[in-house]
């Protein structure tokens, strides 16, 4: 095999092998999604404080205009993704919870045109960080950690390695894969920028073996750069989990309650690295991203570059859905959140929108879960080596405090336990409730 020189790595504890469904979209090149008539832009698309609204009802905004000001250290700027009129600044239902959002109706013209390109090499570290900060870049793998904050670890944490996460282990999703295939040079440039900011010598780019073309592409591209290494990873969910990736590539264990920088590592996702490059080179704010739209009932499955704030209803109109929709999932099927309304918008962390038919949605009905039979399949599947069975039993009895004794806080909510559970217990649901209610 052409990758025979490379050692295939993986994490050892737990993990599952769901059907991939990547064939629906993996050959679909990124296409621009039409400009939506209306966007709903939440002012909190990140971990931390909600951004302060800078616009009010009736204001006219232009594309890329700052509409939400970063509030405090852990927060992020939010920009308008279309020119138009602010029709409302309201609490809107985003991923099933209420967030202050700016609703903009398309109006006026796009004035931005072509952005001026800078060279990044002469820029100082501080200037690069400032550009990342003002562009409102956050982790685009889902967690939404503000990138400027992530890239400025406390001085006592010595960072020696950057891990770039090109794993994309969630079934269905291919948005990162398409970026890697189509924007290889740009991503390499982005990696170099992040590398400079962190001042690290070594970079590993982890890619799962189901994306052999991407591995080859980067391997060929990177032959001259000895310090960025492509690492092929075994196809196993959740290979792209931050802690699993660190364990697989570096054999380091992030301590309980700790972050990757505690073991000298920063992990950044492919889409984030790409957005960082655009922010630094063009001072372009993060107002659009590549989203995989897929599902057996979707007529035009594909990878679309969609503006932040575009609602599910606009997506449905564009891609075409045949038959009744059972479930709409923002993200992947293992960790994604399904929404109840077509008004839910695409956000910075939305890597996919999946449409399930009634039948597919009904096949996983957690309201008919059965008692735990202690088969211990969940213990075998858990990548953190928890006892999900016990967490589920305590959760079922609403003993949220007792769940802490079973390392509730260490659960990464990857869903492996529920995936293998023969009694189809909503274990992740109880864990989420436990985390919220035991604090």
């Amino acid at each position, binding site marked *: 095999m052409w990758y025979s020189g490379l050692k295939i790595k993986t994490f050892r504890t737990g993990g599952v092998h769901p059907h991939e469904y990547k064939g629906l979209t993996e050959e679909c090149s990124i296409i621009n999604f039409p400009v939506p008539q209306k966007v709903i832009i939440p002012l909190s698309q990140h971990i931390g404080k909600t951004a302060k609204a800078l616009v009010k009802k009736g204001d006219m905004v232009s594309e890329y205009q700052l509409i939400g000001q970063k509030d405090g250290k852990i927060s992020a700027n939010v920009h308008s993704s279309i020119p138009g009129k602010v029709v409302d600044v309201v609490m809107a239902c985003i991923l099933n919870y209420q967030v202050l959002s700016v609703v903009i109706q398309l109006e006026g013209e796009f004035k931005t045109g072509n952005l001026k390109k800078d060279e990044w090499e002469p820029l100082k570290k501080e200037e690069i960080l400032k550009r990342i900060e003002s562009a409102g870049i956050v982790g685009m793998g889902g967690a939404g950690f503000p990138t400027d904050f992530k890239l400025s670890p406390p001085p006592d944490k010595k960072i020696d390695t950057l891990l770039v996460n090109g794993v994309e282990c969630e079934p269905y999703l291919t948005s990162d894969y398409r970026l890697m295939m189509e924007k290889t040079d740009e991503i390499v440039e982005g990696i170099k920028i992040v590398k400079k900011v962190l001042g690290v010598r070594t970079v590993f780019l982890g890619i799962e073996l189901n994306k052999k073309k991407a591995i080859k592409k980067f391997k060929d591209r990177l032959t001259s750069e000895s310090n960025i290494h492509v690492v092929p990873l075994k196809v196993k969910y959740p290979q792209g989990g931050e802690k699993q990736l660190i364990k697989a590539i570096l054999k380091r264990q992030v301590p309980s309650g700790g972050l990757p920088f505690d073991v000298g590592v920063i992990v950044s996702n492919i889409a984030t690295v790409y957005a960082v490059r655009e922010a630094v080179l063009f001072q372009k704010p993060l107002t659009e991203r590549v989203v995989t739209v897929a599902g057996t009932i979707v007529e035009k499955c594909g990878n679309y570059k969609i503006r932040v704030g575009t609602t599910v209803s606009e997506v449905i109109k564009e891609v075409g859905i045949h038959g009744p929709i059972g*479930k709409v999932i923002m993200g992947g099927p293992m960790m994604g959140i399904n929404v109840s309304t077509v008004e839910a918008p695409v956000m910075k962390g939305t890597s996919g929108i999946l449409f399930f038919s009634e039948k597919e949605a009904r096949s996983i009905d957690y309201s008919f879960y*059965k*008692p735990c039979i*202690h088969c*211990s399949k969940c213990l075998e599947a858990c990548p953190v080596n928890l006892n999900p069975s016990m967490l589920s039993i305590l959760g079922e009895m609403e003993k949220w405090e007792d769940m802490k004794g079973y390392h509730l806080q260490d659960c990464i909510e990857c869903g492996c336990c529920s995936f293998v559970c023969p009694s189809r217990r909503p274990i992740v649901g109880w864990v989420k409730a436990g985390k919220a209610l035991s604090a």
Partner: protein
Amino acid sequence: MYRLSVSPHIHSKASVSRIMWTFIVALMPAMAASIWFFGPRALYLEIISVATAVITELLTGLLLKKRITLSDGSAVITGLLVAFNMPVSVPYYVPIVGSFFGIAIVKQLFGGLGYNIFNPALAARVFVMFAWLPEMTTWNAPLTTSGFSKLAGFNFSIDTITTATPLAIAKMKGMAGLLTEFGSKMGMYKDLFLGKCPGCIGETSALALLLGAGLLLLTKIIRWPIPLSYLATVVLICLLSGNDPIFHLLSGGLILGAFFMATDYVTSPMTPKGMILFGVGCGLVTMVLRLKGGLPEGVSFSILFMNALAPLIDRYFKNPVLGVKT
């Protein structure tokens, strides 16, 4: 409004009924062997026992206002295992009482599937054992020709010639007694392996049981730790005490117990370490009872004993959580 649920939104094909029905398939070779060696009456006992278990599950489910879980097949397993644990000559009311006790008292009254502390089939066996000791310890020699040939004639009568189980012979007369019974050592191993010896109808054929166990291990329904540590402990104790390990492995209910009963999910520990400890405990108690106890066999008691300890083992033998310093 679309359907709302927590993640994950996809599932492996695993289900309780799939596990249970595979388990039932794995018991089929032993069921065939029971008919082969003990005739149609073995089948009759099995049918009665399963029917009682299923009806009891249904009625107790209705009475206790539980969700009826008949389709998951767990009652069928309990019924089959209860019958497997009886000599062919027991009166028909014995498996009826046994299955009723196992399902109604041991399983349903403790909360139903997933909540019982003891393996229902084993608790049922021990209960009827003490209630009808003579009937439960009267053994018939296996048939010399295939029992299937008698099925067509609905011939449910049994021979009245009674004999002793190999373990009982070993206990009373030692290895010399066994050799006079079976002729040679190799002949004894062969008969024990095939199942051609007196005993409970479902336990005698190691060959048939191992076929089923193979299926369960291949489909990952049961895992190696419990059976392996159980059998290894038995072998070790035999070697240390100067007993024949092969004889002890193949005789009595050890194979049935190690692969089909000690591995019961609900009543055994959940972590690999806990499973090994559980298996070692089963092996230890089995051999102490076999070598020093009042009865020739100790498999049921040992597993029940360890069932009681399983929650404690789970409490103290947890998997090390990644990233947590111990």
